[in-house]
């Protein structure tokens, strides 16, 4: 690394600054490398010439930097630099008493999203199992569809899907758990951005849109699975998840959105010792409506 990396500051106005000295060795070395390669398609003597230049370039370069780098002193010139703006007037968003804020001003803690996802995930199991019982006389039918039967070939029979399979159950649990947690987190992040009726928008409208998107594309992605899905029951499950998750998230208190809050506060964990570790973080705002501003 050059001396410029250390930012020498011993100069004053009218003084000098040390900078790496100009050198012709890099261009000689580069030309030598090119010639060495070009010899392959022209003449061996071109490669020999390139090799000589490479050796010269390396030797010259090393002598430039060993034992000490060559520098030149550049005199400091007094430049008249003005840092000012003619645009003094700053228009601001009207968001509260502060001049600025990160939007949204308040949000739900991350934990509330996880809780909502877990609650919604448990709630939506009921209509899914009910569908299995009523339509296929087996609670395992929807489980197996999620767990892998949908991904297999269309030759698999309905009776096979309606029977219990350990592997499909485990896969279904993993898929269901991860998806519910992620969607719950999404709810936690999205609900403050929905201006009014967050549970209606997040709990009903969003699942309907999602189901519509899935319905229109499933026939292309996986026609066999598409043929086995009962879209009416699917909508009921999705809406159940959305409403329950939305209610759980909305019941949790909001916290102020600010990057300067400690991580644990943003997580929604009440840990006063940890939260007070950052004196610039502003007032500790764990949870609860009493903290709304």
């Amino acid at each position: 690394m050059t001396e410029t990396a250390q930012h020498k500051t011993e100069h004053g106005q009218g003084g000098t600054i040390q900078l790496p000295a100009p050198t012709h060795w890099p261009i000689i070395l580069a030309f030598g490398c090119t010639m060495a390669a070009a010899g392959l398609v022209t003449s061996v003597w071109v490669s020999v010439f390139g090799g000589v230049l490479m050796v010269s370039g390396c030797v010259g370069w090393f002598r430039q930097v060993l034992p000490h780098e060559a520098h030149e002193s550049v005199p400091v010139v007094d430049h008249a630099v003005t840092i000012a703006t003619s645009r003094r007037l700053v228009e601001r968003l009207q968001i509260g008493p502060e001049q600025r804020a990160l939007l949204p001003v308040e949000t739900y803690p991350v934990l509330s999203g996880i809780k909502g996802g877990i609650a919604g995930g448990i709630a939506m199991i009921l209509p899914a199992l009910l569908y299995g019982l009523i339509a296929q006389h087996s609670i395992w039918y929807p489980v197996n569809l999620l767990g892998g039967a949908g991904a297999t070939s269309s030759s698999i029979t309905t009776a096979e899907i309606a029977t219990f399979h350990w592997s499909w159950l485990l896969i279904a649990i993993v898929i269901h758990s991860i998806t519910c947690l992620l969607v719950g987190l999404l709810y936690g992040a999205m609900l403050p951005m929905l201006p009014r009726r967050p549970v209606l928008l997040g709990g009903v409208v969003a699942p309907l849109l999602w189901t519509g998107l899935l319905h229109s594309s499933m026939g292309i992605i996986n026609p066999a699975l598409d043929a086995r899905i009962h879209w009416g029951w699917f909508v009921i499950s999705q809406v159940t998840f959305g409403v329950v998750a939305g209610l759980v998230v909305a019941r949790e208190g909001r916290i102020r959105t600010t990057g300067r809050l400690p991580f644990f506060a943003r997580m929604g964990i009440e840990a006063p010792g940890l939260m007070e570790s950052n004196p610039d973080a502003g007032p500790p705002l764990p949870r609860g409506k009493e903290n709304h501003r």
Partner: protein
Amino acid sequence: MADQTLPIGGSIDVTLARPEARTALLEWLHGWVVTVDHKRLGILYIVYGIVFLLVGGVEALAIRLQLAWPDNHFLSPELYNEMFTMHGTTMVFLVGMTIVFGFANYLVPLMIGARDMAFPRLNAFSFWMTAFGGLLLYYSFIGGFGLYGMGAAPDVGWWAYAPLTAKAFSPGHATDYWALSLIVMGFGTLGTAINVIATTLSMRCKGMTLMRMPLFVWLMLVVSALTLVTITPLTAAQIMLTIDRYLGGHFFDTQAGGSAVVWMHFFWIFGHPEVYVLVLPAFGIASEVIPVFSRKAIFGYPAMVAASVGIAFVSLGVWAHHMFTVGMTSVGNTFFVLSTMLVGIPTGIKIFNWVATVWGGKIRFKTPMLFALAFVFQFLIAGLTGIMLSVAPWDWQLHNSYFVIAHFHYVLVGAIVFNIFAGIYYWYPKATGRMLSETLGKWHFWLFLIGFHITFDTMHYVGFLGMPRSIYTYEPDRGWNHLNLIISLGGLIQGIAVLIFAWNLIHSYLRGKRAGNDPWDAWTLEWSAPSPPPAYNFATDPEVHSRRPLWDLKHPEDPDWKYE
């Protein structure tokens, strides 16, 4: 005779001035040749790139003239193959890469408050390797002895698929010039990437934490890391190809146990991330230009950083979407379909954030902003056609058609070239001390925009109609005649626009309005240095407290650092 009528002193002055002027010119040139100053090297990169932009543009126009009419013979078939090979290679390696790294060279140290790059001599070496590599490639037009005798440039396409590159199908040296020049340029590129990473990580001024770096610097850091990963397999593949051609190797020789598909994998493991190597700096330019001309801070800075890193990671796992028609397994196809679609998420975040930055701003429609805004809309369309092509069955229908050509030109021209122009209009005053003419700039913008859309919008359609890429000519009954003529006319309009741009660069350098140190009322550190900056950049080491240090100085009553 006229001199005799002049006063004696005048005559003496004239005779003495000539050698002095010549000496001064030589010294000036010598100064550029031996320089290790990052600003001069940055300018050399960019000027080199612009010169080859004109060369590659001429090649593109030659291609379009050939295709403007059916059964046309403006070019010979052999020269046509050379033209599209050299056009692609030139635009990617000699224009895109050089200008991107030119911007990085010029701006990164200035933006982070450093005096130079971490390794100034390596920086000079890297530039000259790139420059000589490009000249070696073009020397093939004179010295290349190919299938058609002397003067044969490479003609295997910029992707150079095996087994076309084997000695049996590409005799002579034209293909070797291509491989060797890319190896030479590759080492130059690697040197610059190492330099940018070292500079960014170790030479930031006081207070410049990673999360306070300008987005352009972040993007160049990501791009440099990506370059290290992607140039390496390309260089390895070129060396393997050279071994095949000279030492009897069989890496890609399908008749001796080699595999042509291995070449495709090697090439696209480089080739697709290469698109992001080129487009991420373009994102960086847009992320600097759009806030300044919207008079708002960039929306979602942390998300922009995360999205950039995310794009780089995802881009390393999508290469085989260029190979759906090769016949991969369904698992392979599915993986590359999904991974390619995944790129849409971080890029979508970026588009959303640029729009949110503009939203509610006090927009100033100066030339840099016009180019940046056009980029946002064009890149959105490019992204959407990219998602379409990521669906394997769709790709099976349109692969190797002009739809693909239209898609990647929407990325390479609609996103990258537009932002390169935005960047040049934005930082030209810093580099030269002169403003580029706004009138000429607007002529350039509107003509280029119109020409771009005439050419590449129409190209999508001709692709839908089944016109394959790289064909020399076509029969008149295919229904492509008028569309091809329109595409060629669009290319001509773009050519005129680029000539206006080139004239603007020269004219404004000589007669442009003085810029001052901060003509755009901007916020990043480079605007606190004089225009052009002195060799040492900053007389005293700067210290920053927020992402917009100049905002803090201009608005001491309401500095950013209170809120970051």
